[in-house]
């Protein structure tokens, strides 16, 4: 059974038409399931746990990056998840803006997402963890004054203006195509870009690090603002995801 979790902002009239088209496509493809609206429930984790117990095979986040963050956290923090992990798939139907995560997974458009769901091309991917929040795409922050400390006993810092991006998964459209990012290797891909036209590039990989920054601005998956200091790690192979062909990884 498929569970579709609709974010609150989809209640706005401007999304009625696209939602209607998506629902018709899902019906045509015999992919109907149960619709759960986030605004109507208090504890997302409990609701998802019940659905998994009742045989839900695919949890689909219908919305944007923020929707994905809410749903992922609720799925993984679920005490049953470890037991059901190999049988439960996650997917996304992107609607509106801020959909870099869906883009990374090769899911570019709402109706196309339904076809991708039917095709059931599955990849087991890593998930990033920053303090108590999960992220799929990246954490970004200004580079000047930031210090990155690694458990192997070294640290990196720069006083130049630019950006630091800590990737689990790269957006196929939005992110710099120079960057090599692998979401199935158990490692975070860390890039520091400074200099004129951001030509000076630093690259390394790590499974965990601690960030301190004077600016205190950490942006998670393009939507959530957190304060430094922060501990960032990776949870390997934690999520079975339905992906499209045009994804940003193999």
């Amino acid at each position, binding site marked *: 059974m498929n569970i579709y979790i609709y974010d609150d902002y989809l209640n706005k009239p401007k999304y009625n038409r696209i939602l209607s088209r998506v629902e018709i496509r899902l019906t045509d493809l015999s992919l109907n399931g149960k619709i759960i609206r986030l605004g109507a429930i208090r504890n997302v984790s409990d609701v998802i746990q019940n659905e998994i117990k009742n045989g839900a095979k695919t949890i689909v986040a219908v919305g944007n990056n923020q929707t994905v963050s809410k749903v992922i956290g609720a799925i993984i923090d679920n005490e049953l998840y470890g037991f059901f992990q190999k049988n439960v798939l996650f997917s996304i139907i992107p609607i509106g803006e801020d959909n870099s995560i869906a883009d990374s997974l090769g899911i570019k458009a709402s109706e196309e997402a339904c076809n991708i769901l039917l095709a059931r091309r599955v990849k087991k991917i890593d998930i990033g963890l920053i303090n108590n929040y999960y992220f799929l795409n990246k954490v970004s922050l200004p580079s000047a004054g930031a210090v990155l400390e690694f458990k192997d006993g070294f*640290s990196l*810092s*720069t006083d130049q203006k630019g950006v630091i991006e800590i990737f689990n998964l790269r957006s196929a459209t939005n992110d710099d195509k120079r960057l090599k990012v692998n979401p199935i290797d158990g490692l975070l891909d860390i890039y520091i870009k400074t200099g004129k036209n951001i030509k*000076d590039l630093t690259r*390394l990989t790590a499974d965990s690090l601690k960030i301190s920054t004077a600016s205190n601005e950490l942006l998670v998956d393009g939507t959530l603002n957190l304060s430094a200091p922060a501990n960032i790690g990776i949870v390997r192979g934690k999520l079975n995801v339905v992906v499209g062909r045009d994804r940003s990884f193999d």
Partner: protein
Amino acid sequence: MFNKEMKPEKFKDAETIIGSSVTVKGDFHGTGNIIIEGSLEGSLKTDADVYIGEKAQVVANIEAENATINGQINGTIKISQYLALGSTAKINGDVNFQELSVSRGALINGRLSSHGAARNKKNNSTDKKEVLPEEE
């Protein structure tokens, strides 16, 4: 094989790149090829190859399989195979290698020793010497 900066093609896809604006402090032990264009204080170790850029400032001991050095190093250098010093290399420390090439202009202030030479010397000393009869 080598471009103008003496950067072998294999460094194009290095696992680790430290850009010119970044400072690394501590023991940096990586796997795969490493490029240093910035500053490093501590130690640098890899089982693969190291490229030190012209503007790099390294205060560290370095261990690698092969290395190409164009910048400034204060520390010992231990290379198990081939070490190439470019014309802008400035080394303050002892250097150990299997094979070495030094471009004109490189500055070295330290002892140079080859473990390849030591092995050859040991092999030569065990060779049997032919004894020729004395001429009457």
